[in-house]
């Protein structure tokens, strides 16, 4: 490869550091802005630095950081819109809880339904298997723009608009997850299955005691992809929820964004941090499964 041609490691490292720095700079900018107060942003001091006030205050008294440095965050979490509502408070903390709930419910739902279906496609023999699986594959091509209007109408007719299930349900059934897990289940050696069957294991037992435990990397990959996707989902919740007590973080954050007036940027960046930081942590915790997920998913091409 190119690496075998001697290009000075210094040059390569220099280039990589430069590129990584420019990719990561926005996160740094988000973090330091979220710790400033509104006046800092409008002051004339260099804005690419954490801010003189900020640095001096922390050096003076490290405890300050936890008292006042995180003002934007405490202000945000305390934010509530005073609307009479029978459904609990409509505040920022509600957006956080909703986001967590949506992400966990969708992830769990995807893992359960798609692993069950994938097991049937990979490990059970039944008439029509090929045809049904082909129908699944074909839907990988159907874009959300086509399905979203009738899905909305269906949920509306059920009287489910502005409910949690309206946000969650349509995202739970995934052809992608089914396909990915099927590929993985196919690699489980037949002998293991046969041995279990001779010991009297039922299909459900095979699924639960053999297929699932042997597929933890694939399940982890699907879970992480599903979690990240549902954590930041925006368009579908926007369509089916019009009351703020159902908003997730992406929807809730748009309430703080003034389109034509300048918003309170430090506050807004604190909000962006609250949405973004968990994704960064999930990524750090599960990176290798991510790469796995991409490779497994790409086989479909």
């Amino acid at each position, binding site marked *: 490869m190119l690496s075998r041609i001697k290009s000075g490691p210094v040059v390569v490292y220099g280039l990589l550091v430069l590129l990584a720095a420019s990719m990561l700079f926005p996160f740094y900018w988000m973090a330091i802005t979220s710790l400033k107060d509104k006046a800092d942003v409008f002051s004339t001091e260099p*804005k690419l630095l954490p801010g003189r006030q900020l640095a001096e205050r922390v050096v003076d008294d490290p405890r300050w950081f936890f008292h006042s440095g995180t003002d934007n965050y405490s202000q945000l979490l305390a934010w509530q819109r005073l609307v009479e509502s029978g459904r609990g408070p409509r505040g920022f903390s509600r957006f956080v809880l909703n986001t967590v709930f949506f992400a966990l419910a969708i992830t769990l739902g995807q893992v359960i339904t798609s692993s069950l279906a994938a097991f*049937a496609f990979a490990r059970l023999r039944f008439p029509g298997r090929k045809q049904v699986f082909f129908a699944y594959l074909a839907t990988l091509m159907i874009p959300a*723009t086509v*399905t979203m209007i009738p899905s909305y109408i269906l949920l509306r007719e059920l009287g489910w608009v502005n409910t949690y299930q309206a946000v969650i349900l349509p995202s739970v059934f995934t*052809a992608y997850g089914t396909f990915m897990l099927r590929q993985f289940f196919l690699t489980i050696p037949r002998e293991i299955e046969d041995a279990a069957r001779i010991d009297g294991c039922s299909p459900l037992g095979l699924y639960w005691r053999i297929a699932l435990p042997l597929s933890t990397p694939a399940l982890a990959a699907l879970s992480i992809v599903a979690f990240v996707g549902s954590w930041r989902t925006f368009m579908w919740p926007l369509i089916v929820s019009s009351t703020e007590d159902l908003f997730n973080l992406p929807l809730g954050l748009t309430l703080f964004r003034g389109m034509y007036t300048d918003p309170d940027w430090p506050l807004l960046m604190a909000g962006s941090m609250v949405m973004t930081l968990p994704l960064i942590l999930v990524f*750090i915790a599960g990176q290798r499964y991510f790469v796995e997920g991409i490779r497994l998913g790409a086989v479909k091409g």
Partner: protein
Amino acid sequence: MRSRALGIAALFLLPNLLGFLAFTLFPVVASFALSFCRWDPVAEPVSAIEPVGLLNYVDLVGFHSRTDPGGQTSWVANTPRFWESLYNTVFMMLAIPFNMAASLLLAVLLNRKMRGMAIFRSAFFLPSITAGVGTMLLWMWMFNKDMGSINQVLAWVGIQGPDWLQSYFWAKPALMLMASWAGIGGVNMILYLAGLQQIPRELHEAAALDGAGRWQQLRHVTVPMLLPVTFFIFIISIISGLEGGFDAPYVMTGGSFGTTTVSLYLYRQGFEFFRMGYASAVAWVLFLIVFLLTMINWRLAEKRVEY
């Protein structure tokens, strides 16, 4: 025995299959039917859905002739706004080849046995994981005319930066820049990296023996060997470029300054103006374009990719 096998399989399939029927199969059929109808979901019950034949499609992609006072006849689109949104969408897709080249270069840089490569890979990958409303608001702040970091950096070198998101000239490039940041180190880079690792060393060794330099190896060994991956990434990018692109303009510009994409146009027609039939027609025209492009790509690939 057959029916028993079917029964067991049904138990496994049912949860997913029900969802598949309700939220994929039914919507596809219903959407197609609805695209030939007229219906306002707010004012009317479902029973008021009324067939209108091809009207939505004529409205959407049709042209009519218009004679101006001078007696000149010209053809005018029935809905210039749809064509405008299609233009905006395609314009922003012009970044695709550049993004792909950038992903490839990042992968080439990372594909060596040196310390710390995993850390750099993660750093490049991070934007694509976090991309969402949070990072869109972050970029709105970075693009801010007076206090944003981008114009601050430009000011150092003596350039007065524009008001990025409030300008017909700069709004599209601004969104493209953000999308590149979020995209080049993501899935595509990982796919290229996997592709690079599959190229047999011998090919490069043979090329080097024949006196090929670094650039020539990249051009005549690496790039041709990666053609299948490149082709896959290209198709996916085209599909997501045409179908996607809703969140960023919705959040960052509200679709003004020439940033209304087709998906944003569709959303507005369906969920803000409540023209469900018309919006469904938009979805099908878009799907048809995507489908035809994908078919053409496959045909071309059949000729080029095999070697």
